């Protein structure tokens, strides 16, 4: 399908986590939008779908998946795509996103976001998979840049060139995770500003802001702490160039009280405004 049109959403949000369901169900407008993990709601019934429906009445919702495995060499799981389509039809999301990665192959699922070699072969395969996904979902796909801890001897291009080419070949859009750029840049020795220079910003619809941890010789994308200053600084660079998009705080572990996340949302708003003032000057 043609995927040229995906309206922008200009606002700030958080990833909705179970600890914060009561607040989102009981209080007024806390953020401009929320993002939910698709797989948590690809269930048959019960509280998850009750909560999602109720939250959707109050907020725009972005569906963010972790299991599409768009880069699996043995193709996509059609049962997964059909379940996701069903959820998307129910939720009427801003968009449906997943990661540029593979999670498993030949009947194995690691439930981790595994890295891809950036080669022409991979480009052709991922492009074909994106077209299939977009056809089944009847929506454009939004792809997120992953954090990674390996690069491949066969790599023929940078990640940002790979993503740009994917958008040209398939009409997909991008979710730019600023923390992941920072983490992968540190792990693989590239300058995040080169990444930012290479991203086709007209295709970016969403931004993730998160924290990371120091591992043994590598930064680890743990998403378990506040956004650190270098990631905020990189966000300002991105915000100055990206135009109106949905930006959000993403926390997946050690979930703090909602107030802490909302305070980070306020920082994101301030950093965004600062970037535009600097840009205008």
């Amino acid at each position, binding site marked *: 399908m043609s995927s040229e049109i995906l309206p922008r959403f200009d606002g700030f949000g958080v990833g909705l986590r179970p600890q914060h369901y009561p607040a989102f169900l009981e209080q007024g407008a806390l953020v401009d939008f929320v993002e939910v993990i698709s*797989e948590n709601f690809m269930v048959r019934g019960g509280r998850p779908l009750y909560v999602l429906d109720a939250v959707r009445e109050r907020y725009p919702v972005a569906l963010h998946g972790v299991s599409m495995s768009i880069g699996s060499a*043995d193709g996509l799981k059609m049962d997964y795509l059909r379940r996701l389509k069903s959820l998307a039809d129910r939720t009427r999301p801003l968009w449906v996103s997943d990661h540029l990665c593979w999670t*498993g192959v030949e009947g194995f699922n690691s*439930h981790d976001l595994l890295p*891809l070699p950036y080669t022409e072969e991979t480009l052709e395969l991922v492009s074909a998979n994106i077209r299939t996904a977009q056809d089944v979902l009847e929506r454009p796909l939004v792809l997120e840049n992953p954090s990674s801890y390996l690069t491949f001897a066969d*790599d023929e291009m940078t990640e940002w060139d790979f993503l740009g080419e994917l958008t040209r070949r398939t009409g997909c859009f991008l979710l730019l995770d600023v923390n992941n750029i920072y983490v992968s840049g540190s792990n693989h020795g590239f300058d995040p500003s080169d990444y930012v220079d290479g991203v086709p910003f007209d295709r970016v619809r969403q931004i993730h802001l998160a924290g990371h941890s120091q*591992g043994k010789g*590598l930064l680890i994308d743990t998403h378990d702490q506040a956004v650190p200053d270098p990631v905020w600084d990189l966000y300002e660079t991105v915000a100055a160039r990206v135009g109106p998009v949905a930006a959000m705080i993403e926390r997946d572990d050690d979930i703090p009280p909602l107030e802490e996340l909302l305070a980070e949302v306020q920082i994101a708003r301030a950093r965004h405004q600062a970037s535009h003032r600097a840009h205008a000057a």
Partner: protein
Amino acid sequence: MSLLALQRGLKQHILGAVPGEGGAYRGDAAAGLAVYHNAYRVQLVACLRDTYEKTWAWIGDEAFETAARDYIAEYPPSSWTLNVYGAEFPAYLLARFPEDAEIAELAWLDWALRRAFDGEDAPPLSPEVLGALDWEQTVLTFAPTLELASVTTNVAAIWSALAEETNPPPVEALPEPAAVRVWRAGLSPQYRTIGPAEFRAIDLLQRGESFGNTCAVVSEGLDEAAATQLIGEMLSTWIQDELIVGARAEP
């Protein structure tokens, strides 16, 4: 190297007993491979802890972690959803702790309650509909989340104490056969210990037997007053528990 060959290689690194090395990567890949090797296990152990929270509390960190890691080595996940990961863990624990039946029974209860949590919705029949039924000829449909298992220990009391974070009672063998049924009422997963008559009745009804025939079977050997009391209490509990979601006349 083809993409498929590369993915098979990384899969083997992740599944291996120790993180491996390989020529497919740029530079020194040992640290990166170790991250993926470790993250895979950490996430699956966390998944099992989450699903089997009371079992974990009962057997303790060390025993649970060891059992979980051995299970993960034997049962790598294949589904796209972690919701179904760990389905074989109760049976695995039974084989691992054959002298401690309450462990596998606790695990079954953890699993069944988790599945009931996001299982299929089905509203209970209203009192008006129930009141109009010709019960003798009726075939009932129970909530789709209903699961039953025979138990030999006071596992329900142990689970309940662990859920309330009070001191669990010591394990006791039940004096007579019993079962636990799990279902969801509204949005809340529930469990209840039931006796052999109710277990038999639900089993028959789930096989499509009529309510009348089921009552006849489970009342065998009882005088009329006892049979009436048994059936009345059973039916009243099912209605109170929102278990009956469908009814049709026997063909």
